């Protein structure tokens, strides 16, 4: 590891910064997408539900890396839009993980008791007011744990940009490897860096979760380990119900 | 009736090791050897003491029913017997062997898994929730343990399973999965499954509590039949007082982790001596 000079360390640290930026931008785009699509999927009009559902299925069905290639190589040739690799990546990751997130939003909104909406109607709230003042504040704490899982997946997904030549951590790793011809230390350091980022992200989201639950007067869920998250999630099972076959059914004692 | 039968728990009731014959639940005329002995057994769940230095003896071939309000520790006794729980203090002996402990180098240490398994092989249990294996058909539910624990040949085990299914009146259902049976049928299969191991004692844990009312009678009839026709020892927790009266040699009344009164059913049900027993019986009868 001593072969990694200060200059190479700087390269890696710059990579960390790029990875953090990518994660933040993609998460912001993903959050907007998740809310818009997720709420649209609970809309009264079938056309809105259909279109948002189609969006969800398409982006959930494609591979993020293929989509990134498509954005980067096909859009310029086919449509004449040249995206910087960084923005092609943000667009891909944001739209893809936003699709996963829409399922979280939809599920949490659907889980709010219908009586709560009815109470809103009885009090003369407009549909928008019902949503903002009644439904979302109750649904939000339910969304946080699965969103934490998605954020970790997003963080891991940012490594794909190194294939497009964006100088993130993973890209820094390949440069350092070429310079030192030592793979084991470099890739170990890189993996640890990602792990630390994931750990910080999990901790931060745990604080958000505590606050969200406190906001509706509920204690935070207890967790066994540093990382263990509800549902063990990955987009595939972050979808509520996907793991339903595996949920516990304890014996009444 | 000897007066000490209803004295408070902290004296010799229901049984003291030194004068077993006099205070044995099985009665002075006990025909079998001592099979189960609880010696100062205490069990706590957190701050709650479920069993409080319980002494108890059951003789071979006897049918003993435990009654009392819920939370009084009856089910805990069965679960301790089955080694599903471990006592905090005291020892349990079964068939002349320590169930909860084993002797190592002349000292008594808590039993290891191997020792417990060897001793409890002679103990069978039927659960409130049946606990049949849903992934096995009825016949295999019954043959699984005889084949893989007792080492019986598959044919012999199936032969025996058919006899037992005949006993519980379910010969037609041996090729079904438990999920295809009613609760009462499942419980009868569970009884057959427990008997297939030829246990010396059968523990019955509120076996009709989870059943729809119209299915209770069928299960109790099977148990009455078994009580009458075999020499198996029964240790039974139930809320079915008529059933308890029918099959028991001895009824033990529990309250707050102690046996407050015991005796033959006719005495307990018609002339209980303890105030708490009277209250309890007037509430459930």
């Amino acid at each position, binding site marked *: 590891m001593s072969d990694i000079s200060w200059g190479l360390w700087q390269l890696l640290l710059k990579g960390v910064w790029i990875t953090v930026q990518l994660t933040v931008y993609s998460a912001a785009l993903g959050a907007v997408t998740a809310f818009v699509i997720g709420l649209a999927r609970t809309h009264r009009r079938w056309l809105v539900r259909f279109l948002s559902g189609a969006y969800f299925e398409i982006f959930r069905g494609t591979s993020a*890396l293929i989509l990134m290639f498509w954005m980067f190589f096909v859009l310029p040739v086919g449509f004449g839009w040249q995206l910087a690799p960084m923005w092609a990546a943000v667009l891909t990751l944001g739209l893809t993980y936003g699709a996963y997130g829409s399922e979280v939003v939809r599920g949490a909104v659907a889980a709010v008791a219908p009586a709560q909406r009815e109470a809103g109607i009885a009090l003369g709230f407009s549909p928008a007011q019902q949503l903002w003042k009644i439904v979302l504040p109750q649904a939000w704490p339910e969304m946080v744990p699965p969103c934490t899982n998605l954020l970790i997946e997003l963080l891991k997904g940012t490594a794909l940009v190194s294939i497009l030549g964006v100088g993130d951590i993973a890209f820094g790793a390949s440069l350092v490897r070429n310079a030192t011809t030592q793979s084991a230390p470099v890739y170990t350091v890189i993996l640890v860096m990602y792990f630390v980022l994931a750990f910080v992200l999990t901790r931060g989201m745990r604080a958000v979760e505590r606050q969200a639950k406190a906001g509706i007067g509920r204690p935070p869920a207890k967790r066994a380990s540093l990382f263990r998250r509800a549902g063990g999630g990955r987009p595939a099972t972050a979808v509520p119900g996907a793991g339903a076959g595996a949920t516990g059914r304890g014996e009444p004692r | 009736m000897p007066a000490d039968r209803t004295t408070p728990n902290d004296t010799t009731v229901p049984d003291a090791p030194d004068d077993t014959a006099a205070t044995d639940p099985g009665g002075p005329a006990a025909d079998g050897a001592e099979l189960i002995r609880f010696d100062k057994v205490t069990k706590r769940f957190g701050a709650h003491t479920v069993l409080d230095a319980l002494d108890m003896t059951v003789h071979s071939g006897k049918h003993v029913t435990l009654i009392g309000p819920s939370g009084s520790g009856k089910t805990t006794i069965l679960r301790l017997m089955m080694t599903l729980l471990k006592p905090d203090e005291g020892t349990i002996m079964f068939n002349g062997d320590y169930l909860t402990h084993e002797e190592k180098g002349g000292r008594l240490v808590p039993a290891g898994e191997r020792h417990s398994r060897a001793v409890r092989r002679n103990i069978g249990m039927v659960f409130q929730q049946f606990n049949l294996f849903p992934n096995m058909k009825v016949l295999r539910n019954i043959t699984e343990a005889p084949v893989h624990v007792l080492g019986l040949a598959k044919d012999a085990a199936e032969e025996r399973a058919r006899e037992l299914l005949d006993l519980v009146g379910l010969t037609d259902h041996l090729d079904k999965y438990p999920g295809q049976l009613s609760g009462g049928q499942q419980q009868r299969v569970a009884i057959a499954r427990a008997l297939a191991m030829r246990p010396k004692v059968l523990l019955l844990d509120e076996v009709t509590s989870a059943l729809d009312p119209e299915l209770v009678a069928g299960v109790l009839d099977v148990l009455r039949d078994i009580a009458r026709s075999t020499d198996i020892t029964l240790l039974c927790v139930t809320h079915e007082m008529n059933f308890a009266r029918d099959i028991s040699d001895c009824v033990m009344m529990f309250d707050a982790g102690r046996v407050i009164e015991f005796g033959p059913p006719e005495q307990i049900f018609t002339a209980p001596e303890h105030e708490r027993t009277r209250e309890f019986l007037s509430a459930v009868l």
Partner: protein
Amino acid sequence: MTFDWSAVGDFLPAFFRGVLVTLQALALGSLIAFALGLVWALAQRSARKAVRWPVTVLTEFVRNTPLLVQLFFLYYVMPEWGVTLSALATGVIGLGLHYSTYTAEVYRAGIDGVPAGQWEAATALSLPRGRTWTAVILPQAIRRVVPALGNYVISMLKDSPMLFAIGVLEMLGEARQFSSQTFQTVEPYTVVGVAFLVIAYPASLLLRALERRLAR
């Protein structure tokens, strides 16, 4: 935008070679993920701390770091340790190892979901520990996690293009090669993108139907 259908035709032979490699990687990777995940799940229930702890650390680490970097790690580091495997074999191991940390969680939930009464009944019948696992607990646990495992197979399918980064000529690798030889970019990438949709969407519909059936 111009879409050249003849380029699609030219790409097809390479494309199908790629599909075959992708499916190979997926099948073998799934096998590793299913088997290794079960090992992790059982090890995490071990009574020994010396078994539980290293497995927990390993699975948490692998699950919280990118598959792509893990692939590079295996591809460059394993030869330094004297193990030289083909790119495809390395990719299969990487995929399988990464996803085993997810299937481990799935198995764990499935095992926890088996009612306590099943363990108690096994104890009451004196079934040996190994027999309790293989005849009673696992058959029930695995049955209820089949849909969740299936979902991870679809996730693996979508992650399989990463194998191209270590030189595996799966679908994306073939598309990249085709476009660098012919300078046709729109067609190969579009064909590959559509192919993923065509495989993944029906598969997820199938799993949802299976899940509903098992939920009954």
